[in-house]
């Protein structure tokens, strides 16, 4: 039945391999389009090592070329990645396209590549060989999806700031996806060379990039076999047209274009959308929360956690924070209040690594101020944001699972080998995540997307995600903003409960009643400076504070 379709089936496999090299960067949200260059380098270099005769009589000699190709592709991606990975979005896309074009021109002008004439090679890639490679790739991505690394990729794709604050090393994750993409592109290049039996610089021009990107996006990143879906679709459409008796020529590209357009317009997430819906809802683990007992104990009350002196931040001529000294001790609930623009958010951004200070120094849980966010997260700082930064295309449960990043170990390599310890670690992360969802009362929304939650529930979800990191110091930036009175009261109760569990809390809030209810110590900021600090009721009665901030409220309370 397959007779006569060998070439088509192999072409589809090659299309899928190319698409995987785009899939892996798209998973991490990086629009990186240099794959054609990495593929061509790998293809040309592999011709230097691939033997001309089958190995041991029957094994395809390309088997030698594949690791070589992967290595060359990965190395090239690393070298290109060092300068370009600072770029984002369309700038990254165009810088990587430029790198591919430069490689093409170099190959075109080199002696050993035979320039524009290219090379003729033996055709060693058969369709079973090609599909074996696809199967290996599909396996690698299947095991990656629900692993700690797979979640880190998704978190970086959805929101880099939030990912960093959850302990994901954003720069490393982006580089990892970039290098993996280079390696897969390298494998593609070698397969291409020994399937078509001929390589020229033109084989790896911009149209290759477009076709790889289109295949990957068409397939979608929601399921691990998305690239295969895309390749089968694009490979099959011309065949189906032939079978229907449609003439070749302009009708084929027209139909392909229209179908592609239809998929993109009507199926966000590509063809994988059709399969992602089949996925079962996440199962709540039984009453078995035993793994949680193994979490590290939190520091004893009174232990100094953070100490900063002279912390300052200015944006041009605006001094947002001016010389703030702050000590935080374990077990306290520290409220930070102040008028709008007093520098509260800037202050917590500096002590969680989101912004470097312009002056001042200190450490938070041993991490020097000015380090990158994931360092603070790994040390035990976890935070929420004033404007919630949830991973919008992940489920509620997956959002919280990302939070477990810093208290779990990488499971990907062990998952590849089906080691039981990987399964244990994933179960533990799942139990930890479910426990937080229950803690904030969102367990029955686990399968929903954040977009479907009410405003108050979104804030709760952010808190659950932060708690999943088992933080020593939890920073909440206006957690009650937009909540109604009842929700705010519940939240105050939750915060006090956290303190009872030994979590140290620093929270910024405008709802003064809630702050006075929940905190054990109060700091008041105005114009970037600490104007009062101490026992909440006393501070609230301080005339300077009243003048700066509580004016009207104080008058009201006097009349009562």
């Amino acid at each position, binding site marked *: 039945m397959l007779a006569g379709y060998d070439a088509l089936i192999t072409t589809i496999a090659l299309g899928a391999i190319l698409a995987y090299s785009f899939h892996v960067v798209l998973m991490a949200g990086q*629009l990186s389009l240099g794959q054609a260059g990495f593929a061509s380098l790998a293809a040309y270099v592999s011709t230097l090592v691939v033997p001309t005769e089958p190995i041991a009589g029957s094994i395809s000699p390309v088997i030698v070329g594949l690791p070589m190709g992967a290595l060359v592709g990965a190395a090239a991606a690393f070298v290109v990645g060092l*300068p*370009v990975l*600072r*770029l*984002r*979005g*369309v*700038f990254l*896309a*165009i*810088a990587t*396209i*430029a*790198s591919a*074009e*430069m490689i093409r*021109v*170099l190959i*075109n*002008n080199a002696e050993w590549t035979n320039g*524009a004439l290219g090379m003729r090679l033996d055709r060693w890639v058969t369709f079973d060989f090609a599909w074996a490679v696809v199967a290996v790739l599909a396996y690698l991505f299947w095991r990656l999806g629900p692993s700690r690394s797979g979640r880190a990729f998704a978190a970086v794709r959805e929101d880099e700031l939030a990912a960093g604050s959850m302990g994901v090393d954003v720069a490393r994750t982006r580089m990892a996806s970039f290098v993996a993409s280079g390696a897969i592109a390298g494998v593609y290049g070698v397969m291409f060379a020994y399937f078509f039996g001929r390589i020229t610089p033109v084989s790896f021009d*911009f*149209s290759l990039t*477009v076709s790889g*990107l*289109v295949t990957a*996006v*068409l397939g979608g990143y929601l399921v691990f076999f998305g690239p295969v879906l895309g390749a089968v679709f694009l490979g099959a459409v011309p065949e189906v047209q032939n079978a229907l008796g449609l003439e070749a*020529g*302009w*009708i*084929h*590209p*027209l139909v*392909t*274009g*229209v179908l*592609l*357009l239809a998929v*993109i*317009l009507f199926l*966000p*997430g590509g063809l994988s959308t059709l399969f992602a819906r089949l996925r079962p809802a996440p199962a709540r683990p039984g009453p078995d929360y035993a793994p949680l007992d193994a979490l590290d104990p939190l520091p004893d009350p009174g232990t100094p956690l953070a100490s900063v002196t002279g912390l300052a931040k200015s944006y041009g001529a605006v001094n947002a924070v001016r010389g703030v000294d702050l000590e935080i001790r374990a077990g306290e609930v520290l409220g930070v209040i102040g008028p709008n623009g007093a520098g509260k958010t800037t202050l917590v951004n500096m002590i969680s690594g989101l912004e470097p200070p312009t002056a001042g120094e200190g450490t938070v849980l041993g991490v020097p101020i000015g380090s990158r966010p994931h360092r603070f997260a790994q040390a035990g700082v976890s935070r929420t944001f004033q404007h919630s930064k949830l991973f*919008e*295309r992940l489920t509620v449960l997956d959002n919280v699972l990302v939070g477990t990043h810093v208290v779990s170990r990488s499971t990907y390599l062990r998952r590849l080998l089906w080691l039981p310890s990987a399964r244990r670690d994933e179960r533990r992360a799942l139990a930890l995540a479910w426990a937080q969802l229950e803690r904030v009362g969102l367990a029955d929304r686990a399968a929903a997307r954040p977009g479907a939650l009410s405003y108050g529930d979104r804030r709760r979800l952010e808190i659950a995600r932060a708690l999943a990191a088992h933080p020593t110091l939890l920073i909440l930036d206006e957690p009650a903003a937009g909540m109604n009175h009842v929700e705010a009261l519940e939240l105050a109760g939750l915060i006090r409960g956290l303190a009872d569990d030994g979590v140290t809390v620093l929270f910024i809030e405008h709802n003064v009643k809630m702050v006075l209810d929940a905190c054990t110590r109060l700091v008041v900021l105005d114009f970037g400076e600490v104007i009062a600090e101490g026992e909440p009721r006393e501070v609230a009665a301080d005339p300077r504070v009243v003048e700066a901030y509580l004016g009207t409220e104080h008058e009201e309370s006097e009349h009562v």
Partner: protein
Amino acid sequence: MLQQLANGVFAGSIYALFAIGFTLVFGVLRHLNLAHPAVFTAGAFIGIEVAARTAIPIWILFPVVALFGALAGVLVERIAFRPLRGRDDEHFAGLISSVALGGVVIALLQARYGTDPQHFAADYFPNRLFEVAGVRVTLTQLVTLGLALVLMLGLAWLVSATSLGRSMRAVAENPTAAKVLGVNVGRVTAGTYALSSALGTVAGALLALNLGQAGRDLGASIELVGFAVIILGGLGSLWGAMAAGVVLGVAEALTIHLFDSTWKSMVAFALLFAVLVLRPRGLFGHVKVREV
């Protein structure tokens, strides 16, 4: 040497025309319209056909081509971008939908014109040769340069001084606020695409006039250089794109002069790469870096 410089300026003015249409849409709407090269190609074919059928003079030909282009631009927006509005993958999906639509446009061109390149009739436009200070220029090149200058200055005037231009700048700054203040965002969007594609089709027809012919890969051949131009100029910056187009044209001409033509695109991309790494906002741009 001087001759090479002049050739570079002529080539660069076409790059610039191609690129300002491209960068206009990005600057106002943050869309990267990858159907633009196909529209550019369509402009060349339409120009050749209209010239062959009606024998209208060249100063009527380009407005006619621009009309077709404006219409095509409105369609591109309606088909490839409007349905995606508000989706969380809007920018990303727009890349792919516009690639797909570009493919459809090229297929339609193939349906109408076949696979062979189309030619302007040899006597359509008298290609007189001038010699100024030892530099030879053709009439076509002069027309190209003149038209490109007029169109670019016209666009700059339109954006800075007319009510449509004001609305476009408002939408570029903040679409939501513009809408609240009563700007008809739908109309501005359509207008931006119409302008962009009109410029693109005229650029295509001009390039075809210079080459004497046009094939289906005309747009693809200039696409990457177009990227380089808009980045060098600073994404979304009109003046930057104009300047960068000429800079790149001259740089290419000099490379051909000093090395040979196989190194031509190396200069564009090495320059592009260096600028992106060292100065991501472009040589002239000050547009805010925005994610796609």
